[in-house]
């Protein structure tokens, strides 16, 4: 019974840790994320013709792009940093959306929070039986 109690308490501690990470993770990534606008850049001649850096791909979004070489000079109208979509594709750079981090974190918080409550109740019950 004592071993079971210890195991339940240990699992509850892990659930608490996961819950903490579920809150800390998005906060960490949010500090790293930037408003980014993906662009298919024009070559020099097309940029001169159109007066544009390139064709915008998708809406501006909060993203984490690990490779600084992916960024182009300048910003979009909304202040978003311009990221070279062609460079990212050819170099396997996958832009991580902050939205994805937050969605996964929500699942982690929900699962770990639920587990913490159940394990806490189990630990409390076992402790009463042991006493």
């Amino acid at each position, binding site marked *: 019974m004592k071993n079971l109690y210890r195991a339940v308490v240990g699992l509850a501690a892990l659930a608490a840790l996961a819950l903490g990470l579920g809150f800390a993770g998005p906060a960490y990534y949010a500090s790293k994320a930037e408003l980014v606008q993906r662009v*298919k850049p024009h070559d020099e001649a097309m940029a*001169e013709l159109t007066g544009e850096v390139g064709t915008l791909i998708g*809406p501006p979004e909060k993203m984490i792009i690990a490779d600084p070489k992916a960024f182009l000079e300048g910003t979009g109208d909304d202040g978003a940093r311009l990221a070279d979509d062609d460079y990212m594709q050819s170099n396997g750079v996958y832009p991580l959306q902050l939205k*994805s981090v937050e969605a996964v974190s929500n699942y982690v918080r929900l699962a770990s929070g639920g587990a913490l409550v159940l394990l806490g109740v189990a630990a409390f019950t076992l402790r009463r039986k042991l006493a």
Partner: protein
Amino acid sequence: MKLIPILPLAVFALASGAFAQSKNFSVGASGRAAAQVFTFESEAELEDFTGLTHKVTGNLSFDPKAKTGSGRIVVDIASIDTGIPMRNDHLRGATWFDATKFPTATFETTKVAHKSGDTYTVTGKLTVKGVTKTITVPATVKYMPQSETTQRAGFKGDVLQVKTSFKVTLKDYNVTIPAPAQGKVGESVTIKLTVFGSAS
């Protein structure tokens, strides 16, 4: 009496002059295929994604003086890439765009109205997955007469750049979201199109 045979000629000449302002542009036929960009943006619970293809062809007609025109654009649905092969397969599948049966989407204008500057309102028939609906969308049209700049960019004649962005409700075009993905994928997508037409 001598004016009578001249009058029809004058009318014809005036009419010819008016029609001569309308220029024809070919989309996707030049070496600037990468400049043609069709995207659709979908919002999903876990990750927003953008599907993209450069395989856009068509013909445009534009009168820079009267500021009107017409055109037909064809998009190769089967070539749309979202960056993830499995997602591409899903989109080409029967529940989504059924690209085997309906490999292209088309837009054919029925009315072009000038608003101001380079902005227009375009009404036309959008056909996706075999379903045709009349829609009205905003568009930006830039006419660039032949110059050293257009030639340096690889175009032989005058250039017409057309841009548009509009939302489409998927179920209007028989595109169904599979049950496991319902509520997790947006029921509408934002279509964005940038094409460059080259006068021949």
